[in-house]
């Protein structure tokens, strides 16, 4: 087993990995940029190495600096977390060359699954059903036209190097094809430096169902059942759960076995996720492999009892899987909500700034994977994910109730977060009924607004504000309105007050 691991990430996921290492008796090395000196992951790791300026390209994406930090600290392995360098096959290859263990899949498998068109070809050959569409990048416009006609509109344009919805767009008619392709190419070029795009049949309002897999270095492969992540906003998952309401035991087994087939066909090892789209008629299609620990991995951990980060580290250190498919069972129901620093009332604009106060939700079956603390300044440079709230209960109904109670118990003051939006999702009748698909947010939350404030709560808030002003001694109140504004201290104004005054 490793003695020391460097974590090439920040925020809640870096903390998640530090905690796993600590439990396993492994020392941890954090890395940090100028923007993160006071971040939580730096505080809780055993060692921390400064790796450069705040912009990610100069720090968390800078391979030279991260490799140098690993050598300098004597770390034998690097855990990349998710995002940043996690799915970069060049980085995995570089680690292999530098004799540092990359805690993730081997570089060849990473390269294969990162190229969507090659992955489609491989899976098609292995007998895995893929979304009908092109299996190569055409040179001529006419080939796109012919393929689109054959598939039938609407079709989906996708970037070969894709991810995160970039370069993706729906085309509903022949007239829209050419402009769509041009825009898709431009987006793909700027996002990935590769303008290759291809066409797929557009699957209408599917569910997003993915399978967690683990594969050791000796060909032993298991799946740890599904997660449903249909609740997405602009192709970003926001609520995830396990199990999926859409699967029965037979379909679950079939999809799980297919996921294992995908992993074997790609020569994949360590932890990974095989994503599928499930259509209205329960046909499922291979979408892609996420070659990393997923943001939503905790829901699988809570339902299977397997610690996925421990497993990643064990597999990377050369251990064999200590359990087989037969040993794994799904128990109860887990839901995760991603807590983002964004303002749902204001077009989901990112909100940075100081967290004035934080109270984490607690209680039976409540897990909070968190990268923030009271007094921390949220930097503007990185992904706005602050934390993840995960609950587990005996069944879906109770898990929804527990999630709502936990969201109500979650206090973050000073910045805007997605909490109020998440509450309305979890309490939506269609969500409660399990009728979810990737169009859920678009169909039910297009013109979402925060609910009217309750008069009693508003009065209480004003009373609290008044109490606070009274006791902080800093209060000034306005005596005239419009034109010249004069302020006087609260004490001077005292004479004007009488009970029942005002509206």
């Amino acid at each position, binding site marked *: 087993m490793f003695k020391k691991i460097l974590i090439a990430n920040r925020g809640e996921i870096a903390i998640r990995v530090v905690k796993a290492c600590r439990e396993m008796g492994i020392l941890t090395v954090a890395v940090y940029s100028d923007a993160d000196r006071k971040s939580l992951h730096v505080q809780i790791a055993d060692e921390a190495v400064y790796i450069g300026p705040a912009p990610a390209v100069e720090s968390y994406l800078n391979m030279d600096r991260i490799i140098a930090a690993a050598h300098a600290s004597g770390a034998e392995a690097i855990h990349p977390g998710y995002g940043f360098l996690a799915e970069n096959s060049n980085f995995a290859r570089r680690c292999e060359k530098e004799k540092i263990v990359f805690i993730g899949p081997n570089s060849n498998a990473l390269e294969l699954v990162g190229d969507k068109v090659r992955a489609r070809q491989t899976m098609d050959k292995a007998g895995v059903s893929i979304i009908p569409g092109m299996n190569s990048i055409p040179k001529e416009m006419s080939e796109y036209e012919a393929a689109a006609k054959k598939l039938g509109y609407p079709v989906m344009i996708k970037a070969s190097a894709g991810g995160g919805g970039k370069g993706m767009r729906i085309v509903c008619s022949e007239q829209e094809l050419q402009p769509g392709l041009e825009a898709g190419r431009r987006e793909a070029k700027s996002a990935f430096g590769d303008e290759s795009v291809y066409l797929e049949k557009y699957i209408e309002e599917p569910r997003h169902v993915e399978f967690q897999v683990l594969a050791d270095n000796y060909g032993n492969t298991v799946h740890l059942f599904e997660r449903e992540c249909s609740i997405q906003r602009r192709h970003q998952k926001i609520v995830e759960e396990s199990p999926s309401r859409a699967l029965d035991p037979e379909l679950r087994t079939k999809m799980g076995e297919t996921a294992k087939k995908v992993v074997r066909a790609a020569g994949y090892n360590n932890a990974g996720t095989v994503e599928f789209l499930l259509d209205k008629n329960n046909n499922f299609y291979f979408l892609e492999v996420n070659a990393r620990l997923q943001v939503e991995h905790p829901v699988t951990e809570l339902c299977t009892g397997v610690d996925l980060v421990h497993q990643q580290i064990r597999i990377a250190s050369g251990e064999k899987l200590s359990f087989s498919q037969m040993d794994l069972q799904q128990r109860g129901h887990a839901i995760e909500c991603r807590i983002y*620093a*964004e303002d749902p009332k*204001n077009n989901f*604009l*990112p909100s*940075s*700034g*100081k967290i*004035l*106060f934080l*109270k984490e939700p607690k209680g039976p079956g409540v897990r909070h994977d968190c990268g923030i603390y009271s007094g921390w300044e949220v930097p*503007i440079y*990185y*992904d*706005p994910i602050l934390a993840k709230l995960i609950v587990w209960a005996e069944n879906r109904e109770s898990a929804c109730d527990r999630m709502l109670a936990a*969201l*109500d*118990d*979650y*206090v973050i*003051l*000073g910045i805007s977060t997605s909490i*109020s939006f998440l*509450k309305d999702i979890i309490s939506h009748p269609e969500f409660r009924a399990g009728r979810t698909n990737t169009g859920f947010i678009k169909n039910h939350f297009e013109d979402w607004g925060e609910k009217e*404030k*309750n008069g009693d*709560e*508003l*009065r*209480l*808030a*004003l*009373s*609290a*504000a*008044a*109490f*606070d*002003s*009274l*006791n*902080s001694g800093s*209060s*000034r*109140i*306005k005596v005239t*309105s419009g034109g010249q*504004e004069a*302020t*006087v201290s*609260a004490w001077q*104004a*005292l004479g*004007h*007050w009488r*009970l*029942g*005054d*005002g*509206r």
Partner: protein
Amino acid sequence: MEFEFLIDNELRKISLEKKEDGYHIADGEKIMRADIQPISPNVLSFMISGHSYLVYIAQDKDKKYIFINGRQFIVQEPGRETKGFPGGEEKALEGKLLITAPMPGKVIKIHVAERQEVRKNQTLAIVEAMKMENEIKSPVEGFVKKIFVSAGELVDSEKPLIELEAKK
């Protein structure tokens, strides 16, 4: 004592007075008595006719952030407004309009020049934060009086970006 607060752009009055039997709160016609105990610097316990409410509160400049029963309220003290420029909103000061960024970020581009005329909703600048670009639009028809920042500069939500003068 009477207090005035801005909440959701609405001015609200409330009076609070300490008496021997607790605090007397009057909100228009509604009058109630509360036992208010500070629990910790950010937590207040309210007891109102046998009901217990926990209120979380924190102050940043002229804003008080208050959390009750899963709801957040942002309450502003109107008399102290001029101490800072509330994010994302134009601020009228003797006919001048100061445009600020909606959140801290980096100025990507300034689309206008000083003395240039602008239409209402014309894009003045682009500010990027957390990998997202946001257009800053002109709230009025008028002209650009002064530009305080340049492309590439980091700004917080208080620093004015641009000063406009509205057309009369």
